[in-house]
């Protein structure tokens, strides 16, 4: 089934050669495929593949897929309304934002935004605006899912935090792309140097530049779920194959941020998953990239099958230059405040076990 899903996700990617099966699906196989397409947010590409003749569905199956996709689109529209509300809240508070991921990729990188669905909204704010941004969302009635380990941690080291709206939708407030050592090396001011706008209704909102969208997609694909999900891999391929993308700018930023391994792994993953034969600047960079020992260790800690919380924390400490920051990070990881532990729904005992693991691993180095 994973090859079928990859073929569906590859719909519309120029140069992708992964093929969907030529034979029709029986209803049981179709139901399984549709369920997985929903889970991977691929219903738009599924419908596009069927309408394009690459996927052979019966009329009933096609209708079912259309109904399910419309349900996903209804969620996207509600999320875009939420995004506009959040945009308005932050504008009133004088906080500039960048829209990340789903809505930005749908509107800026697809001719038809309906094919790229999403399940939450992601917004980037500057570190110096962090506390005010959190307070703005809290004051508007959105509930912060997790507390920070210690006061000031998120602003200095954190990826961001998830807020939940009263009706259950999620707002991911980001300070950077991800957590862990690779995130700590990103030069965040770069992300604010430019941007690209798109319209939601009559409101213009700003996303990252195309090159930074590609970099974010790479960090998401390489350091997110394991194995990498198809949707971020498709975003990587889509943006990398877009002739408007300045590949050298992407490579330069990745190298400057110490993220060459992240980009290489993501692009190699996308090219492999979708069987893309075309060579473009960034795929050539990925092909010739030589992973250092540090790369291998940090990738394993942050985004591999064996990744773990203690290993990522240890790798993060190594990535922090300032000795005082190292101490502050380690202290927050080892001795977080009770509110953080309770919000994570984990007891002190488990935390203690993790802390001991972290100390032990560091002691073994």
């Amino acid at each position, binding site marked *: 089934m994973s090859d079928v899903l990859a073929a569906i996700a590859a719909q519309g990617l120029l140069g992708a050669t992964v093929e969907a099966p030529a034979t029709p699906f029986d209803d049981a196989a179709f139901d399984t495929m549709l369920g997985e397409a929903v889970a991977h947010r691929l219903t738009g590409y599924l*419908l596009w593949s069927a309408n394009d003749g690459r996927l052979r569905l019966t009329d009933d199956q096609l209708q079912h*897929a*259309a*109904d399910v996709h419309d349900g996903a689109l*209804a969620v996207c529209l*509600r999320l875009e309304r939420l995004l506009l509300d959040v945009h308005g809240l932050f504008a009133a508070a004088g906080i500039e934002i960048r829209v990340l991921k789903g809505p930005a990729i749908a509107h800026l990188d697809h001719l038809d935004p*309906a094919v790229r669905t999403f399940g939450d909204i992601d917004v980037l704010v500057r570190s110096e605006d962090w506390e005010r941004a959190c307070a703005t969302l809290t004051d508007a009635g959105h509930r912060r899912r997790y507390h920070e380990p210690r006061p000031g941690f998120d602003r200095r080291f954190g990826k961001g935090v998830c807020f939940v709206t009263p009706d259950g939708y999620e707002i991911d407030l980001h300070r950077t792309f991800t957590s862990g050592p690779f995130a700590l090396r990103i030069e965040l001011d770069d992300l604010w140097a430019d941007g690209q706008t798109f319209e939601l*209704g*009559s409101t213009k909102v700003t996303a990252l530049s195309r090159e930074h969208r590609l970099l974010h997609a790479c960090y998401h694909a390489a350091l997110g779920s394991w194995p990498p999900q198809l949707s971020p891999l498709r975003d990587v391929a889509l943006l990398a194959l877009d002739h408007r993308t300045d590949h050298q700018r992407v490579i330069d930023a990745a190298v400057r941020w110490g993220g060459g391994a992240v980009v290489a792994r993501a692009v190699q993953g996308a090219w492999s998953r979708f069987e893309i034969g075309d060579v473009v600047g960034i795929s050539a960079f990925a092909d010739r990239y030589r992973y250092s020992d540090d790369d291998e260790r940090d990738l394993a800690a942050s985004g591999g099958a064996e990744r773990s919380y203690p290993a990522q924390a240890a790798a993060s400490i190594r990535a922090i230059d300032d000795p005082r920051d190292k101490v502050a990070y380690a202290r927050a990881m080892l001795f977080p405040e009770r509110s953080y532990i309770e919000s994570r729904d984990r007891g002190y005992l488990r935390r203690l076990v993790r802390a001991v693991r972290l100390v032990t691993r560091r002691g073994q180095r």
Partner: protein
Amino acid sequence: MVDRPDVWHRHPDALWRIGGNGLLVLPPGAVEPVAVSGPGPAVWELLAEPCTADELAGALATTYTGDPDTMVSDLQQLLEHLHSASVVVRAAS
């Protein structure tokens, strides 16, 4: 004095997609999107610019067959319905 026909266009703050079964529009203030199948996507495409029911019928006649007067009447009803749901607005003439 001659009544001028209403001129319609999309609500500027409506959010929309063309879905698997037609048009989905989320008007401002609504929780559930309005679904319009059949000629909905074509009508929505035309309403990117202000136009009357007559003008819509004329443009749709290249795709849909039927009595022109009936088509105008049906479109008028559709537009009134969409207006009541804040999907479209009357343009200032």
